[in-house]
């Protein structure tokens, strides 16, 4: 009411007169200070010095950037690729010479399988080549949906999701779940695409020694202690273990049952990368979970590429719907990239058909791997890196010369020796500056189901001759 307001006003004026002088002066100064701050110009701390225009022009003149790329010498070992004319199948024409192919990851020989080619042709006639769009925008074809459900059935999981490029599969899957602040425990021998996935995720990465469960347990225990100190943070920090089924760099198998035990003990999720073991290990080719008899639901995510045993292009992730469905909106390589060309998907479906119809091929392949492994034992100067059932072995120098370049040259000469005699091998390639734990130089020997007894005999004797001739 008006009277009440007036009364308050009178009180205020009275208080003003009754206030001590210093109080009024202090308030006056404060008001003046506030007015000054309101009207003064803001400045950024690091711009307290200003360059004149002339100085700026001079700086621009003087600045010389590095060249866009450093020069590459003409005889850089990675510059000149070996040229393959014709299909890279069992018999391969490399640099003009016909050889038996011991270098392509064509484990089940499906690269030149007639049924697969027929299905791809039929798909070409119907769909053309490209899909012209990402999955979200009319790039989803019935072939993709069929392939996803077939893969889920084959692996006996709830759902599968396919990517159009093998490298991008695990590299997009990891950052979809693990963000800044989360924790990932990775094996040291993890392949490059896993490393890129880890880098894109911006999480804390802890490496444990290759296949060393004690080292991993030690790291997990340390983390448990940390969690006790800070339970609030621990409640929102997701933890993952990323391992490969069959490691591409060391050709050995991860100890999956122990990993699953650690998973439940320390409450960590497992992401399993099965590019090399899909279609190789296990009674029906389902990979390392079947090999060890581990329940597939215990693994949160299985990722594999279809570029090895399946002999197509692309990759897939499979697991429970709870986990996999998330990638449909947050897997970058899935949402922002065109989908897999339908003929490649049709080829993959046919490859799965063949794998399902004839589960004997996996044991035949493993027999051959074992045979090659045993035959290559005792090669002078070279040692085998890998386990018996691995289809892609490494041959490393027993005694390194001390310099990586000269080791590589030596191994390259062995490869060339074998190529001249009709056996195609290859050096295992790495990006020396980018790898975290650079593997030693090695020759890759790949065994496929199409290799006959004579082929294996010839290759083994070639390698042994090369080793004795060139490695003294």
């Amino acid at each position, binding site marked *: 009411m008006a009277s009440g307001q007036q009364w308050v006003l009178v009180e205020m004026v009275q208080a003003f007169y009754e206030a001590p002088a210093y109080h009024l002066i202090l308030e006056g100064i404060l008001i003046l200070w506030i007015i000054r701050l309101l009207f003064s110009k803001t400045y950024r701390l690091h711009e307290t010095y200003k360059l004149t225009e002339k100085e*700026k022009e001079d700086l621009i003149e003087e600045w010389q950037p590095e060249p866009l790329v450093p020069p*590459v010498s003409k005889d850089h070992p*990675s510059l000149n690729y*070996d040229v393959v004319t014709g299909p890279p199948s069992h018999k391969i024409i490399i640099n003009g010479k016909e050889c038996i192919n011991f270098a*392509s990851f064509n484990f089940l020989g499906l690269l030149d399988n007639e049924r697969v080619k027929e299905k791809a042709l039929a798909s070409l006639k119907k769909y053309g080549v*490209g899909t012209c769009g990402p999955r979200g925008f009319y790039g989803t074809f019935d072939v993709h949906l069929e392939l996803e459900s077939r893969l889920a059935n084959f692996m006996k999981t709830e759902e599968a999701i396919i990517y159009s490029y093998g490298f991008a599969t695990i590299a997009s899957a990891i950052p979809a779940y693990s963000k800044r602040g989360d924790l990932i425990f990775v094996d040291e021998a993890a392949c490059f695409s896993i490393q890129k996935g880890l880098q894109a995720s911006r999480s804390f990465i802890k490496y444990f020694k290759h296949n060393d469960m004690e080292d991993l347990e030690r790291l997990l225990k340390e983390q448990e202690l940390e969690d006790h100190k800070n339970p609030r943070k621990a409640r929102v920090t997701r*933890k993952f273990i990323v391992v490969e089924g069959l490691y591409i760099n060391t050709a050995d198998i991860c100890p999956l049952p122990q990993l699953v035990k650690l998973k439940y003990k320390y409450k960590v*999720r497992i992401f399993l990368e099965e590019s090399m073991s899909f279609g190789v290990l296990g009674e029906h080719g389902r990979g390392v979970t079947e090999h060890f008899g581990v329940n597939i639901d215990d693994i949160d995510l299985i990722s594999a590429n279809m570029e090895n045993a399946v*002999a197509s292009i692309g990759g897939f992730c499979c697991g429970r719907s709870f986990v996999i469905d998330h990638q449909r909106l947050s897997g970058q390589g899935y949402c922002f*990239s065109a989908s897999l060309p339908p003929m490649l998907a049709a080829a993959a479906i046919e490859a799965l058909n063949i794998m399902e119809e004839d589960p004997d091929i996996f044991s035949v392949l493993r027999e051959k791997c074992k045979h090659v492994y045993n035959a290559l034992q005792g090669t002078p100067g070279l040692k085998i890196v890998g386990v018996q059932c691995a289809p892609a072995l490494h041959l490393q120098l027993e005694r390194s010369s001390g310099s990586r370049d000269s080791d590589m040259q030596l191994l390259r000469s062995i490869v060339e020796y074998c190529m001249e005699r009709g056996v195609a091998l290859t050096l295992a390639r790495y990006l020396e500056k980018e790898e975290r734990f650079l593997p030693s130089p090695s020759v890759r020997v790949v065994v496929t189901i199409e290799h006959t007894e004579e082929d294996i005999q010839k290759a083994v004797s070639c390698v042994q001759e090369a080793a004795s001739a060139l490695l003294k």
Partner: protein
Amino acid sequence: MARTAANGNLKPHLNQNGLKREDIKRNGYHNKREKDCPGTGVASRQHKQECFEQAPMYVAVMTYLGFGIVTLFGYFRDFLRAVGIEKCHLAQERQEQKDFVPLYQDFENFYTRNLYMRVRDNWNRPICSLPGPVFDVMERVSDDYNWTFRFTGKTLHNVINMGSYNYLGFAENNTDFLKTVADKISQYGVGVCSTRQEIGNLGIHEELEQLVATFLGVESSMTFGMGFATNSMNIPALVGKGCLILSDEVNHTSLILGARLSGATIRVFKHNNMHSLEKLLREAVCSGQPRTHRPWKKILIMVEGIYSMEGSLVRLPEIITLKKKYKAYLFLDEAHSIGAVGPTGRGVTELFNVNPVDVDVMMGTFTKSFGAAGGYIAGKKELVDYLRCQSHSAVYATSLSPPVTEQIIRAMKCIMGNNGSTEGIRRIRQLAENTRYFRARLKEMGFIIYGHEDSPVVPILLYMPGKVVAFAREMLERRIGVVVVGFPATPISEARARFCLSAAHTREMLNKVLHHLNEVGDLLCLKFSRRKHSSRPGLHDETELELSS
């Protein structure tokens, strides 16, 4: 809703005359006038052809209101789910893993659960024919409000395809045209099973690379198996720590991922705004690296030829001038523009009459105009040689599949007019004609469209979330397949429908689409443009109608 609401109102105050005056910033209020400035000078002439009209104020208000209401509903339904009144359709974590740290934070999935799920029948629509100018969409229905779908078994035949990136119409299954591709399948199979540096370097890859280099007018090129991966695997090889990347605001995710993986410092300049870019360049060269003030090792400007969400073209001549002045390097991503613009389909360099040698790194993809898959990087021989040794893709990733390579080769030869055929030029001209016609008619009708006159990517602004969904569903009923995009791919208040024109679209198809667009535009009151004679649309709140579904 992670994007700040404040940003939505101010965007896009594009400064057309970027090199000549300061940005005008208005806090909070829409500038009701259009941002079509009369430019002076040759460079601005290009940008008279680009326009980004602002919608009236009530549209923004309605949009935010719509989002606000849906968000409130979302909280309400979350509450019902938590209490147990409403069944939770989401997949749940395993019983054995219930005491693990939750894999997803509740808030992360708020948008997915409550907004996206209701309307997700407009995306991921499966088709069962080739993605040509018309296609067959598989009919799917949902019995539980889009949580699960089932296929009825019927297909919607001959739906006009306005969503696939089929600019030159190479998504075709004509047996004659595809004969060489079929031969390659019979000869090679579809896989390669090895990397480029090991044993996956086939003769046809080298043939393709030479062809790409000739096509673009550069010294040499290198091809990769996936367009997305081309960026994410090669940018880290070119720049690293101690380098600076200046990237456009609306760059594609692959460019952003590549920039992040490289470890370089990233600074963003306003979309197509040369003034902003020049300011950043000056500051970078003069001040050097933050804190230590050491000079930058390299500066890389990353831009795209056609920006796929805006439909705008890069301002290439001005960027080249800037780059030469400040000695920076230019990375041009021509994913959408290669083959689609330019009198002979050579992309933005041809359109703007720029020497391809001036662009340091030319990158592009084969998915869009060539109807295949994969990407390339082209430029000087030193650049490509370096990438052959150091690119992540060459060492660790599989090379292109042989039939896909053959498809690219035949498409490129067609465009180049080998054997004297004029098929390629015919397609390019058809595309240009379709683009102009479509854009002109849309403007006449009164829609707000973004982008350059010559760009075959046409975004029509819809703004309100309810209208976006209604538009997509309505158009499908009329047998036209459109692509709609909303937040988070676009700013929150600028949801749009994006049309991709193709050389394979005939005039009848375009007329049919335009006719239906006209009808739907009137039905849903989408004609926001206040330019010509279209009357001001009334204040209809479509959002309420859509929520009740």
